Structure formats: structure tokens, C-alpha cells
């Protein structure tokens, strides 16, 4: 049986847009190995650097915020980013559990 557990991240994105923030939506689109969160997991980031939700268990969120702010700065609409444990910066924002995750960033506008 499947349930529709939903973390209301999109509802929160709507609230942020209502107070005129620029909002980036990050969604887990692919996982390999023991990546901690399933496909479809979401996180939102705004131009102030606030974030809500999660795409891993706290392993790569800092980097996702940084990438999102860059996307806004460059005024691009979307970007795909990947995190692997073999990444050189793994000690800082790789997945300690050895998984890999692919995340799609998109501006809501």
C-alpha cells in the first residue's frame, strides 16, 4: 500500500512567494546506493538564504543553498546538480553514507 506522505514544502513556497521572495525549488530526481531521502523529496531556498525541507539528511543542504543562490545571481531558471561520496569536497558536503543523489534546482517565477 502506498501513502501520500507530503511535507507541505510547496505550500510553504507559496507563502514565501506571497511576501515577494525569490524562491528556488530543489527536488531529488535520482538516487543511487544508500542516499538518505527518496526521489521527490523537496527543499526550498530563498534569496535571503533561508531554507526549508530537505533533500538528504543534512549532508548536502549547505551546498544546495549555495548553488541556489548562485542560480539566482546568474538569473538562470534551472540546473541539475549531483553529489557523490567520491566528490573531492566530500568531507564538506558529500554523502557520508556513501550514496549518490541527483537534485534538480528550479526557480519558481
Amino acid at each position, binding site marked *: *500500500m*502506498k*501513502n*501520500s*506522505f*507530503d511535507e*507541505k514544502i*510547496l*505550500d510553504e*513556497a*507559496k507563502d514565501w*512567494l506571497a511576501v515577494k521572495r525569490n524562491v528556488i*525549488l530543489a*527536488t531529488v*530526481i*535520482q538516487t543511487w546506493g544508500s542516499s538518505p531521502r*527518496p*526521489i*521527490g523529496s523537496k527543499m526550498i531556498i530563498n534569496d535571503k538564504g533561508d531554507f526549508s525541507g530537505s533533500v538528504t539528511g543534512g549532508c548536502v543542504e549547505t551546498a544546495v543553498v549555495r548553488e541556489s543562490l548562485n542560480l539566482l545571481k546568474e538569473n538562470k*531558471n*534551472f540546473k*541539475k546538480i549531483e553529489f557523490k561520496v567520491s566528490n573531492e569536497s566530500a568531507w564538506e558536503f558529500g554523502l557520508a553514507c556513501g550514496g549518490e543523489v541527483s537534485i*534538480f534546482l*528550479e*526557480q*519558481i*517565477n
Partner: protein
Amino acid sequence: MKKKLLNKIIENKEKKIEFAIITNLKNGESCIFEKNTPLDKNFEKYKDKIFSQFNKKNNGIIEGTEIFVETYIRPIKIIIVGAVHIAQYLVDFAKNLNFEILIIDPRGYFASKKRFPKVKIINKWPKEAFNEITTDQNTALIALTHDPKIDDPALQHAIKNNFFYIGALGSKKTHSNRCDRLKKNGFTNEQIIKIYGPIGIKLGGRSAPEIALSIMAQLVSVVYKK
């Protein structure tokens, strides 16, 4: 994603419609897919694959493409019989877990809007109340009144309609009496054993929020067993 699309997604979620969000990862375009609505023409060539992914309720990138599909299924419905103290905490837990909640209680002073804001309440006896709502194998029943006049008809309805979870509050003795009454009404042992009674997993706590937590934990564990 366009703001308009975001609003439509939230609207669909509130309406409890089954749908999917389709995103082209190559150009960032996205749209909503619903079963009986024509598909956005930009995604036309992936139609069959999107349809099959949607039917399987799978999330992910369609193999060999750059199309990402995320399906939203209808929330599981939980019917609570008895607008009692525990029910107030159950409503909070259920909201966070995205279950759809409905409360039945013929006693108006219990089932008031003041005690349960934003929850659908049916101020009727279970028999009449069930005529107003659709239930199926994805429905759960939590019976909390331990008054046979109110709980029993609801339990009987749930057994007959194969609810995936049926729980009833009350001590071992109360539950054993309940089982006897069901037997007298022609229910088999096999049917009766499906009722979780006394309801909830053993946590040890006896306060209303703790009992609500133990019920919710049991219900979620059953979701994943089936």
C-alpha cells in the same frame, strides 16, 4: 516552475485529486498531468511513457529520456469515531502525515467546530454517517468512544468493507466483550481478529497525546505492511 503551476499543484492537493508533475530536465519546462485531461503538447511525444509511470505511481526519470515524473496519490482516509480528547491529538498527527481525516460523533457537545476546527465532522450515528461518505480498502477506522452503541455499528461497517486498518480503544476486557457481541452478530473469528484492540502499540504512556501517538504509530506500520 511557473507560479501558476505551483498554485494549481496546491489546488489539486487540496482537492485530493490524483495527478503528476512532469518536468523536462533539459529545458526546465513543467506541467501537470491528470488522467482525463489532455496532456500539455510539449510533452505529447512521451505520452505513453508518462501514462505508464503514472499508473504505476512511480516517481523518477523515465528511462532513456530527460523527463521527470512525480505522482501525487490520494491521501489515505482515516475515520475517527468519537470526538474525544485523544481525537484532538490524532488530528494533529494525521495532518502532519497528510492523512485525510473525518470525525463521526452523534454527540454534538463533543463533535463541535470549536474543539475540531478545520476537520470534517459528521454529527450523526455511524450508520447514517457512512451513507454520506465513500470508503474503501484504503480507509482506516479508529473507534474511540468505547460505547457499543456508537463504536459497534462503525466497526461492523469497517469489517464488511475491508478497511485496511481497524482499531478500537478499550481495555482487554472491553475488547473481549466487543468481540463477543460481534460474534453474536454473525461475524467470524477471522474477521474479528482484524481489529486492533486494545488499540495502539505499547509505549507505556497513558496521556491523550501518548495514546494518540501509539495509535498513529500502529496505523503507519500497517500502511507499510500492506
